[in-house]
């Protein structure tokens, strides 16, 4: 997973059927020290994250599990990045 900051939202009317109903947020990725990486990720959101929130983003099969628990039968989930947690504090 990576940490990042939610900076906005993306809307698409023409999209794959599997993307229906997904909220897509723009996340600026940060490195372990909180520095900019220049990486911009579009992540599905089920946690109602808002712009400015500090979040962790799960990729790959981890992202699919966020959207539908059960790794055995969620191969059809069309998502490669999902917000896994909204960070309140980190030591």
């Amino acid at each position, binding site marked *: 997973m990576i940490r990042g900051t939610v900076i906005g939202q993306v809307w698409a009317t023409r999209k794959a059927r599997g993307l229906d109903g997904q909220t*897509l947020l723009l996340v600026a990725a940060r490195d372990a020290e909180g520095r900019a*990486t220049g990486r*911009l990720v579009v992540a599905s959101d089920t946690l109602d994250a808002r712009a400015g929130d500090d979040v962790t983003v799960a990729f790959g099969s981890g992202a699919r599990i966020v959207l539908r628990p059960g790794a055995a039968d969620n191969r059809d989930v069309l998502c*490669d990045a999902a917000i896994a947690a909204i960070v309140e504090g980190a030591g």
Partner: protein
Amino acid sequence: MILGRVIGHVWAARRDARLQRAKLLVVRPHAIYEPAFGTRHLVATDDLDAGVGDDVIVCLGAPARESLGSNDMPVDAAVLGVVDRIEWRADAMQAPGAGPGIQRALGAIGDTK
């Protein structure tokens, strides 16, 4: 997923049999999508009739294959959405993690909206 802009098409007469009907686009990501890849563009399949100049959402990895109906496809990037609208915080430039690359990206998207 990543955000990118369609900048061209790819034609290939000789291609994997499973790709015979796939439309292939050249997409330039609006920001780096993976630090390990130095390339500034990628080739993605497209079922949504995206055209040159469209901003698109590109999914990487296994879901890209699944979007074509099977995991048994020689594909690792697929256009899953054609962007209508992007909203970002006015102070996004100052947000932690919003470095020069992000500023460039947001500026590029802003060019056409």
